[in-house]
């Protein structure tokens, strides 16, 4: 999805003029003691950096004194949070809070417009606010090609209860958020909470940003961020580089399929026959020899009981894909059962070649799926 770490999102905020608390990042390379001393402050908000949500509940965010900071950082570095270890901790200047707000902008997929979601009740889960206090939620739609200007957000600011100089701060933040979202191809920018301090300043106390992966080519600075690499496992990253969509799952049978819809339907069908997919692997609309080889290379390093290949030869001919499968099996020493379903140009030749080489090969999907499940369950 292209989510950023909070410290990366806040860095982006600062570059675009959106106010955030002063902070410093501990990266587990330096001495914690010296790191804390350098900031020279009495208390901090210490925040473990993670891409998965629920950090507060997991105890990864805590207000600590300078004396407590070292122990706290030590206690959360390396701690598992939803499958990934915490690698970095941000220490942030604490805010004096007068009131907390919620603010988010996103692309509304159903309408294709930009959408603002805001609330005068921030700092809590926005979905529960929407359920219990719908009157505290304010929305605004804006055309996807609009030019952000402060006046467009005066009404919204007033609904949220802002006035005077704070209202101007608000409209400014909105313009900056939108300018950032438009120029950096962000599909979500969320601030929860947006804090009004006791001395009447609006500050983004948290920051959540999702970037559009399809726009990496024109936002190379974002594409190279640590978060964009950490979001994948090592194998997923290797697959991505080869143009393969790969997601690790918990089941028995490794899958190679073509196109997202057919890959999902393939996973569904294995479950229908009483087994389960070990992964989701989509080599794209038309398989070619190299991609199938790479996909098998990835699967050969996973713990699986069998492999089901369900490919549609697009530009590439199926007989060529069949030869690719045969050589890959030998080179990679794959010893689990394999069933192949081939459809597309020259599919009959492809199936024949595979059968002659001792593979189970089919032209239709259902009997093929049934076969692989039988094979891993010990049948013939």
């Amino acid at each position: 999805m292209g989510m950023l770490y909070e410290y990366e999102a806040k860095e982006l905020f600062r570059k675009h003029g959106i106010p955030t608390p002063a902070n410093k990042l501990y990266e587990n390379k330096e001495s914690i003691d010296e790191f804390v001393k350098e900031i020279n402050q009495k208390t901090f908000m210490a925040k473990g950096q993670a891409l998965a949500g629920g950090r507060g509940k997991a105890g990864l965010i805590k207000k600590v004194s300078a004396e407590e900071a070292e122990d706290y950082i030590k206690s959360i570095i390396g701690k598992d949070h939803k499958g990934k270890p915490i690698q970095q901790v941000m220490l942030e200047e604490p805010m004096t809070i007068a009131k907390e707000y919620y603010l988010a902008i996103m692309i509304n997929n159903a309408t294709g417009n930009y959408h603002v979601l805001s609330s005068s009740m921030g700092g809590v889960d926005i979905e529960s606010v929407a359920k219990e206090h719908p009157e505290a939620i304010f929305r605004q739609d804006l055309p996807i090609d609009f030019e952000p200007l402060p006046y467009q957000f005066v009404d919204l600011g007033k609904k949220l209860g802002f006035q005077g100089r704070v209202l101007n701060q608000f409209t400014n933040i909105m313009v900056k958020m939108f300018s950032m979202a438009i120029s950096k191809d962000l599909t979500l920018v969320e601030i929860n909470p947006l804090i009004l301090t006791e001395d009447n300043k609006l500050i983004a106390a948290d920051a959540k940003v999702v970037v559009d992966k399809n726009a990496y080519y024109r936002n190379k600075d974002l594409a190279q961020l640590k978060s964009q690499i950490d979001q994948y496992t090592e194998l997923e990253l290797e697959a991505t580089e080869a143009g393969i969509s790969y997601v690790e799952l918990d089941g028995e049978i490794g899958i190679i399929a073509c196109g997202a819809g057919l890959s999902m339907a393939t996973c569904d069908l294995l479950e229908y026959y009483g087994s389960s997919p070990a992964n989701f692997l989509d080599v794209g609309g038309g398989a070619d020899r190299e991609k199938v080889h790479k996909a098998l290379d990835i699967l050969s390093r996973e713990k699986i009981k069998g492999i089901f290949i369900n490919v549609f030869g697009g530009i590439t001919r199926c007989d060529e894909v069949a030869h690719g499968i045969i050589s890959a099996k030998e080179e990679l020493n794959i010893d689990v059962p394999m069933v192949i379903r081939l459809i597309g140009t020259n599919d009959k030749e492809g199936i024949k070649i595979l059968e002659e080489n001792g593979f189970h090969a089919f032209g239709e999907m259902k009997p093929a799926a049934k076969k692989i499940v039988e094979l891993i369950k010990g049948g013939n």
Partner: protein
Amino acid sequence: MAILLDENTKVIVQGITGKQGSFHAKSMIDYGTKVVAGVTPGKGGEEVHGVPVFDSVKEAVEATNAEASVIFVPAPFVYSAAMEAIDAGIKLLVIITEGVPVKDSARIRKKCKEANVQLIGPNCPGLITPGKSKIGIIPGQICMPGNVGIVSRSGTLTYEIIQNLTLNGLGQSTCVGLGGDPVHGIDFTEALEMFENDEQTEHIILVGEIGGTGEQEAAELIKEKITKPVYAFIAGNGSWVKPGKQMGHAGAIVQGESGTAKAKMEILSKAGVVTVRTPQEIPEKIKEKSN
């Protein structure tokens, strides 16, 4: 009749000199599509498979009166190519390219609505009216003319369903792949209405996926306006699906309960749609209804 496309539709291929564009232009021509021109800036005056290449869509339209265009250019160039086609007066625009930034897709969609252009895609296989014409990459050899209309968010899964229909002697009126991206051109409801109004179509298949709300909107419309039988398969209906994980298509993200395949199938069933757990069951369901 069929919808959107017939044997008289004149088609331009944008990106015809590229590997994908050239390959699929040939397969469209072989299928019978009236491919009247290709466009690649800087290559005007050349020919590809006997089709004249122009430097701009405007020149191609002036020379051929084409009303449809299909885009095969790489993702970074799609926005400009689409805007160019709309400005040149194209009325049916099909974008095959995958990986188009969502902001670009949304802007293209907005401009198409304003200019009354039917947009299909991006990240889609295109459409085919079997026996007459195809725009895009759906393999012609698996199709057969008939009375089943198909509207789908998927590419290869659509081929799977078409192949099963054809093997069972059930032909198709038109098959439309809407595209797998979260923001795309015409949606389920628009395609359903077209099939409802099409004399040739007697059955409609809807192929959905986890994520998004298109299937829910379709269910609303079906309840109110669609009198022809509708059959639906939703990919990602197993318990293996991990919420929040993206399964290839940007569109296939489970967003809350409403985006799950199970929720979609329930809503569609309530609207009177025949839902199936495997795509291979569709032909028998159609045969049951026909008897």
